[in-house]
């Protein structure tokens, strides 16, 4: 049986790439193909889901294909480069190292390695997959001979989505790791402007871990103090799915000032909770949101404040954004993504190569 295996540096639960890898494996198995996940580091909770990367080379035959998930530099890129089978690069984008050079030199180093991996792997693979057109364009610019777009599979059910029911003052939310490219500091400025001019009781919650970005997180706390909004900004750290769901359900609007975003899963999460979204028009964000968010080119916190205030107060605008958000979620539905996976197998000439008897039920 033909196999389509996947290789990645780290497989961990709650991680968007880890979820994508597991969903893709489920689809490949459903298509009757053999498929296993290989990773350099495997979180203990997922130890039964994957095998060590070192075992990959011995597990492939010449007709098999390996999908390598690239998001940061890793030793597994060398392993992938040396494989004697069909190779596909799945590109989740790599944050420009400049964002991290001052706050997290170690991360900056691995991001630079990742860019070098992209430059050498992209021209050498048969096909590149971007999880957005923005990422696919970077693949082509790096010399990838053929590309296609497969948005990341979305598992919103883990958050138990329900319409948000905020009680109390307006509460803004942005769910992402604390990182310089996410520009959480801009959101703190927006909150300061919003409270000073329009919504004096507004608050901001920024759930997300700060592994490797402790300096940035400490800077955010200092800025909130300097702007006089320390008591209105919450940095609760990494939260469980259930806790994240509760935070979304208690929010009034979702905001995103990211300067570099390869896709923006948090935007979809916000729509699932009936939250209107205000976002910076940068990187892949405009492509992900379509017409379902208010997009801003400006970085002026007063302009942001005025827009967020309008979204909070204008019920008609809120309803419109929520409705468009629901419609937009349809673009990332299971059925839509299944079509893309079928297209992938067609492009690899693997449709019908699987043994459908091996497919799991459902």
């Amino acid at each position: 049986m033909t196999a389509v295996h996947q290789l990645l540096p780290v497989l961990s639960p709650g991680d968007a790439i880890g979820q994508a890898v597991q969903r893709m494996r489920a689809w490949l198995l459903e298509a009757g193909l053999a498929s296993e996940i290989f990773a350099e580091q495997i979180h203990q909770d997922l130890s039964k889901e994957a095998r060590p990367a070192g075992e990959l080379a011995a597990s492939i035959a010449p007709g098999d294909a390996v999908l390598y998930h690239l998001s940061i530099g890793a030793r597994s890129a060398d392993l992938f480069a040396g494989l004697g089978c069909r190779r596909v690069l799945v590109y989740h984008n790599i944050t420009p190292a400049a964002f991290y050079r001052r706050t997290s030199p170690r991360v900056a180093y691995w991001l630079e390695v990742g860019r070098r991996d992209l430059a050498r792997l992209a021209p050498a693979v048969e096909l590149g997959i971007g999880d957005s057109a923005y990422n696919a364009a970077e693949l082509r610019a790096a010399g990838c001979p053929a590309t296609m777009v497969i948005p990341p599979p979305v598992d919103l059910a883990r958050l138990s989505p329900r319409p948000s029911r905020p009680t109390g003052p307006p509460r803004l939310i942005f769910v992402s790791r604390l990182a310089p490219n996410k520009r959480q500091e801009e959101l703190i400025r927006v909150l300061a402007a919003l409270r000073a001019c329009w919504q004096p009781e507004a608050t901001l919650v920024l759930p997300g871990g700060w592994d490797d970005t402790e300096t940035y997180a400490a800077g955010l706390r200092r800025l909130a103090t300097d702007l006089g909004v320390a008591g209105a900004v919450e940095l609760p750290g990494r939260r469980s799915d259930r806790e994240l769901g509760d935070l979304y359900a208690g929010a009034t609007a979702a905001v995103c000032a990211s300067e570099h975003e390869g896709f923006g899963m948090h935007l979809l999460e916000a729509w699932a909770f009936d939250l209107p979204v205000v976002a910076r028009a940068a990187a892949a964000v405009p492509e992900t949101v379509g017409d379902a968010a208010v997009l801003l080119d400006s970085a002026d916190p007063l302009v942001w404040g005025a827009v967020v205030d309008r979204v909070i107060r204008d019920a008609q605008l809120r309803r419109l954004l929520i409705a468009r958000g629901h419609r937009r979620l349809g673009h990332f539905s299971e059925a839509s993504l299944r079509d893309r996976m079928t297209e992938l197998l067609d492009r690899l000439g693997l449709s019908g190569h699987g043994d459908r008897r091996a497919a799991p039920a459902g």
Partner: protein
Amino acid sequence: MSDQAPSRADAASMVASGEPVVDAQKPDGADLDAVVAELTAEVTRGRSAGTYPASLVARLETPFHPDEGAEPAEAHVRVESARPLRSTRPVVGGVTVFSKRVVRRLLSWYVAPIAQDQTRFNLAILREVRDLQEQVARLEGSRAAAEPAQGNEAPEQGGS
């Protein structure tokens, strides 16, 4: 953005000409670019008219230097093998803290030497880094001392 939506420039000109920002042609209502253009224009007018207090405008421009005030590496050299143990949970908290203390004591023969080794390594690396820092500073000083003579030379003629 949707294919049907006017560009941001078009939206801005609609606002300037007093056209409504709600696009009646769109089946589901407002043109979001026009809303943004309207509010941007409002803020711009407000800035010019002094609607926003100068102190607020200045405060919003507070520079963000995340690496400023960071503790020097020396503050993190020493690796502690024992962290403070506390709990806010009544009754159960006391038992938990006591149990952890016992486990810590039982494992200290194994953990403490590892922490000491790591501290020694950190100190050695830091010493090397500081030596390198001094050497770089000396080299930069020597180069700066040599540069004024070169600075007096006429710059090369560039094309165009």
